[in-house]
């Protein structure tokens, strides 16, 4: 049993190292040496502070894909690192990469830090990625941040599961939300109901990216 645990831990360490190497290769291939060096330094600092590097790598690659200047990309990645730290603080000083990314997006959407803390308290044995993502999505769909927070917290306090929380943006009555009649959030294993939705912008509007199909 102890041996099996050691094997699992060893595999996890190897996986992390491979991921880190892959991230480094992606950055090296996407940037000129000075920009790469600056980004590498930002990510080293983040790792030293216990923050995940993956969101920073992805943000840098987004900037490269959009042909942003190296200076701009470095500034944005540095800012994101600070915001990840803010999200971690709000979440009680810890969190997975997905939780911190979702927390950062929620804070940026205007969700108050106390909401992150409350979610952590309410779901201390579960991840808070989905509730945070849902709060940010509600704001993106036009719900006021304080109202979005209240709705998510109410469901979380009632013990709602992630899949139930994820349906929230499509169940509330709000003028800006009412136009979205089909959920873009679907749990794994659900087969998308696909209305005649591919014939133009209006029809397309009823199934955003969340039209999902679980392959057998």
């Amino acid at each position, binding site marked *: 049993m102890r041996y099996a645990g050691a094997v699992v831990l060893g595999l996890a360490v190897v996986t992390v190292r491979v991921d880190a190497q892959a991230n480094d290769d*992606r950055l090296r291939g996407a940037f000129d040496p000075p920009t790469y060096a600056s980004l590498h330094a930002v990510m080293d600092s983040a790792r030293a502070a216990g923050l995940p590097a993956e*969101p920073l*790598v*992805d*943000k840098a*690659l*987004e*900037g*490269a*894909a*959009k042909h*942003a200047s190296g200076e*701009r*990309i470095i500034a*944005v990645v540095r800012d994101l690192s600070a915001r990840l730290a803010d999200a971690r603080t709000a979440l009680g000083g810890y969190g997975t990469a*997905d939780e911190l*990314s*979702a927390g950062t*997006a929620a804070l*940026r959407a*205007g969700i108050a830090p106390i909401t992150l803390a409350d979610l952590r308290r309410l779901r201390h044995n579960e991840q808070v*990625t*989905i509730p*945070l*993502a*849902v709060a*940010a*999505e509600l704001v*993106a769909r036009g719900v006021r941040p304080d109202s979005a927070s209240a709705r998510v917290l109410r469901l979380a306090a009632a013990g709602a*599961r*992630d*899949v139930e*929380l*994820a*349906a929230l*943006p499509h169940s509330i009555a709000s003028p800006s939300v009412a136009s979205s009649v089909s959920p*873009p*959030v*679907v*749990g*794994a*294993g*659900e087969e998308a109901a696909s209305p005649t*939705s*591919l*014939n*133009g*912008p209006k029809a*397309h*509007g*009823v*199934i*955003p*990216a*969340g*039209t*999902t*199909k*679980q*392959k057998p």
Partner: protein
Amino acid sequence: MTDGTVVQFTLPIPAAHQVVVVGDFNHWDTRATPLRRTPNGTWRTTVRLNPGAHVYSFVVDGNRWVPDPAAPLAPGSDFGSPNSLVTVAPGAT
């Protein structure tokens, strides 16, 4: 990736010659995930995504960044063009 949920991305843009979707799920690689044109001019592809929040955008004809008209915009626009947001819930167990 063997788990996750298959998400369909569609963009009705008949005049386009090439459409790709890029996002955190493919490390913003503009060659990784092309869409295929359907006979009615809608472009479509599917991507298997892990549970969580994902940001993405379409790139039309190699240089035009287009957010998904059917999805909410992700907060912030760090590099000028806004991204779209999709939240994938884990399967109910």
